[in-house]
């Protein structure tokens, strides 16, 4: 009996110990922070990146950018960066930016982009607490739920806000002013900070570049880079296999969906691909493959919970691929009133 009581006490002790252990473990996990990460989702021409431990190397779509990573765009080049909260940066030509930040779980603790030179269009999603900070040697802009353009040219920085509100300060003088929608702030190396109405063409440019997904003349030949699906030979009304090489994602793709439709149709068809190792594959049903083109975009769920849409404006400007049509001939023999045999022949392709 006494032995049984001792055993019972042991069990209770172990249970309490385990419970405490689990609670402590959870507490430990909750306190963990890690580097923020973002993805390069679009690259046009010559874009390079480097990590704190490596030299410059060519950036490709779906490269991961972590805290401390630098990205450099050459003349005539462009890169688009997407964060987990769908905030988007379009780094324009001749720019150098450094990504910094931390997340705790799914919460962004801090996030900033240091821009040594250049120009970037931004569309930052509004967060409850966190502010997105852009900085240069001259200025700091604190952004939340804002669209605009931040550029630094050495002697002066400018911040134009198309939508929302930002806090803009001159780091050299400490001057600080809010920049509202339709305004431009200029911070110069003399410590000045001036705010005025933005040029209409500047505001329009921000909108245009965002809607076009970068430059109007974006590279459409390989819009998805290494993630371009391989459809094989698409023949109208014939089923087709689709395969995506995920090697460039280095195991970070948890799920891949391809949304596709016949060119011009209003609705996309959602096809969940099967991810096996470094490959996502699926089969397009015959009745969904239609002449003359198949439009599509990808939605990739990453292992960190982010969702990448490729191309980033794919829902409105999807990529398309040719579908070979099947030419049909319908022959209807008939007779005229003068007893001539005439055949009505219909041709169409679908």
């Amino acid at each position: 009996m006494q032995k049984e009581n001792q055993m019972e006490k042991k069990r209770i002790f172990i249970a309490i110990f385990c419970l405490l252990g689990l609670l402590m473990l959870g507490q430990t996990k909750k306190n963990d922070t890690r580097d923020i990460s973002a993805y390069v989702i679009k690259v046009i021409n010559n874009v390079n990146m480097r990590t704190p431990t490596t030299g410059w190397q060519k950036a490709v779509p779906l490269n991961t950018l972590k805290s401390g990573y630098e990205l450099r765009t050459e003349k005539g080049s462009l890169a688009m960066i997407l964060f987990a909260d769908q905030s988007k940066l379009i780094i324009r030509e001749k720019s150098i930016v450094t990504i910094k930040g931390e997340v705790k779980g799914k919460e962004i603790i801090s996030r900033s982009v240091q821009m040594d030179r250049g120009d970037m269009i931004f569309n930052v999603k509004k967060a409850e607490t966190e502010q997105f900070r852009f900085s240069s040697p001259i200025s700091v802009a604190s952004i939340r739920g804002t669209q605009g353009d931040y550029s630094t040219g050495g002697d002066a920085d400018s911040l134009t806000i198309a939508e929302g509100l930002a806090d803009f300060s001159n780091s050299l003088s400490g001057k600080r002013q809010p920049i509202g929608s339709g305004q431009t702030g200029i911070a110069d190396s003399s410590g000045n900070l001036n705010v005025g109405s933005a040029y209409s063409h500047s505001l329009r440019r921000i909108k245009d570049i965002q809607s076009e997904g970068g430059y109007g003349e974006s590279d459409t030949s390989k819009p998805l880079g290494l993630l371009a699906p391989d459809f094989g030979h698409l023949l109208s009304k014939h089923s087709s296999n689709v395969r995506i090489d995920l090697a460039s994602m280095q195991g970070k793709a948890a799920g891949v969906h391809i949304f596709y439709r016949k060119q011009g149709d209003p609705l996309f068809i959602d096809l969940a691909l099967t991810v096996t190792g470094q490959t996502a594959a699926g089969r397009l049903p015959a009745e969904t493959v239609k002449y003359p083109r198949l439009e599509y975009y990808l939605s990739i769920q990453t292992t960190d919970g982010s969702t990448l849409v490729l191309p980033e404006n794919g829902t409105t400007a999807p990529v398309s691929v040719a579908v070979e049509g099947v030419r049909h001939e319908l022959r209807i023999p008939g007779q005229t009133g003068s007893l001539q045999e005439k055949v009505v022949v219909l041709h169409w392709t679908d």
Partner: protein
Amino acid sequence: MNICRKNLLFLFACLGILMLPGLISAQIKSVDVNLQFTDYDVMYLTDFVNVRTQKLNPNISAISMDMTVTNPAGGSGKIYVAIKAMIKLQGDNSFSELVEGRTNVFSINGTRSLAARDFARGNSDIYIIDNGYILNDAVKTRLENLATTITTAPPGVYQVMMTVYNESGQQVGGTSKTITVSISTPDQVLVEISNPANGSFSTNLAPTFNWTTQASGVYVKVFEVGANHHSPQDALTGSNPCLIRQLNGVSSLTYPSDAQRQLQQEKAYVLQVSAIVTTNRGEVDQASLPVVFRITDDKTGKILDNFFSVLGGAAGTTYSTLRSDPANWVVWRTYGGITLDGSTITETDLQSILNALSMQTDTKIQLSVENQ
């Protein structure tokens, strides 16, 4: 042609109406006169008068004058015949006397029949006497002028009156004959089929045919179009008729149930109506233009009509033109089935395909028409 006066008299005595009655003898009180003359639509004058000799053609047939003494019945005696010819040519308002004269007194024994040869023969006991002979030179000249351009009797109304007198000059019998010549040549007779319209189609297996013509008699013929017939003429010459009817005095016919063959669905036919023109040389047929009509429900055609009316555009226009008069195109299974990409399809399949195509508003549909 110079028509001598005696021959002209003979011409109207025989030709226009060969005729001469007469009986003589004091005892003869009544003579029955029967003028045999076949009505012709067209009369060739040269068959009645020898142009070269200007004498009456002795071989005129179907014209004779039969006289029978009825009082006393079968009696004999002497008679003579007075002849008067009137004419009203087309365009004239009234009759004009052409010629008037009489024969010599000749014998009749119960009966006597006179034919053209009796006048033409030089040694006949009957001849026209000079006394009382009257010839209207103006009318004669007019006829002669007409005769130089046409070889047939000019259109008009010809009237001949023949009176028989006995030897005492008492009228004992007589007759008259009126002939209307409406056309001068068979070519003037036209036949036009007004129903069915050429190239038309319907489901009616007993259609009604209507036509117009100057002729009173017609032949109505219907021929079935065979698979190897590529024109109406092919059918007219290459197949046996389904129907042949000779009709008089009517201008329509509903396909009869006792025709040689009944009409059938999904078949084409050729209708021809021929006017019968009578001449002293025999019957001449003046045929209408052949008319094609088809028996079909045109179900497939209606499916196509609906499709192309919605489709519109160049294809719709081409199809509409093909279907409209005069092309009157209809789907015709005799030439083979409807095929899609080489495979035969049913009418239901066709409907489904066209329905699907109608939904594909961005699909470009090209239509072409191939002549086979």
